[in-house]
């Protein structure tokens, strides 16, 4: 095949015999059942996120007590925060996704982690903890909005 050639292929469609789907796709009742199943997992989520918050706090404390390996510990903070970001919204805790997204973005940009960065990381971890402790579902209403604005202001300060 030359660099310029493009060939179209219709793949073998073994699925036609296995899957039937109307033009409208999954019907509303089935979709509602699937959403109800996810909602029923919210209790599990609250247990999982407790583990994530404990691990976040642990990684933060190691980053503080072991500054020579701070980058390694901050990478771990990023990894856990990334999981928190990905899960919160699925289980009705969109505010967890928002705050964890801020934490991930901030951590990604840190070149030389200093005390000011560690302080802001701690604020985010505390905010995540607050959301779960207070069961601030969804976007957290006025309290959630205030929390997010506060974090944005602090991030703005260290970004200058």
């Amino acid at each position: 095949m030359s660099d310029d050639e493009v060939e179209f292929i219709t793949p073998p469609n073994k699925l036609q015999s296995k899957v039937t789907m109307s033009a409208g796709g999954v019907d509303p009742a089935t979709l509602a059942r699937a959403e109800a199943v996810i909602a029923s997992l919210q209790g599990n989520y609250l247990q999982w996120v407790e583990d994530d918050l404990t691990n976040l706090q642990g990684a933060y404390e190691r980053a503080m007590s072991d500054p020579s390996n701070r980058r390694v510990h901050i990478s771990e903070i990023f990894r856990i925060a990334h999981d928190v970001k990905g899960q919160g919204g699925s289980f009705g805790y969109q505010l967890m996704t928002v705050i964890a997204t801020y934490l991930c973005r901030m951590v990604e940009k840190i070149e030389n982690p200093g005390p000011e960065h560690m302080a802001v990381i701690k604020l985010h971890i505390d905010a995540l903890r607050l959301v779960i402790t207070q069961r601030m579902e969804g976007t957290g209403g006025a309290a959630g909005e205030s929390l997010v604005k506060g974090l944005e202001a602090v991030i703005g300060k260290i970004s200058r």
Partner: protein
Amino acid sequence: MIGFDGAALKALVVEDNPNFSLLIRSVLLAIGVRSIEEATDGAAALNGMKTVTPDLVIVDWRMVPMNGVDFAKQVRVGPDSPNPFVPIIMVSGYTEPSLVAAARDVGVNEFMAKPISARILTARIESVFLRPRPFVRAHSYFGPDRRRKRVPRAGEERRLQQEPVIYPGIFPMNTRP
């Protein structure tokens, strides 16, 4: 029929985080998919595909030792791929356009950003089954047609003006891209 009947469908979920894996599996079960296999990284999934023969793969991006993009590349063009045509839906918390483009360029059918919902996951599954795209084989790409819309393009049209080739089964070895 109205809706979706996926009782005979075999799905493979490739996800290293057990919580995400449970979430995806729960949605699949709720919409009627009965056969769901799981793997925790791309290498294990490739190995599993030799015996499981999934009809649909849902794969996370970030995994070790083999991530989702490398897995998708191996499925599409690897010499030992069990099924280069299998639909692949990629799930990721990374949504930067360059990363989405990277997934597209290794032949991923659909991309889904975390956090996922039942509505989004079923929409991606619907897209795979209701709007299947022909595959394209080019010098540097093999996978679903990346042009979802027929829009006029600037410059010379590089695509051959031909009818699609219909393969009756899995790739013959000597025609593998």
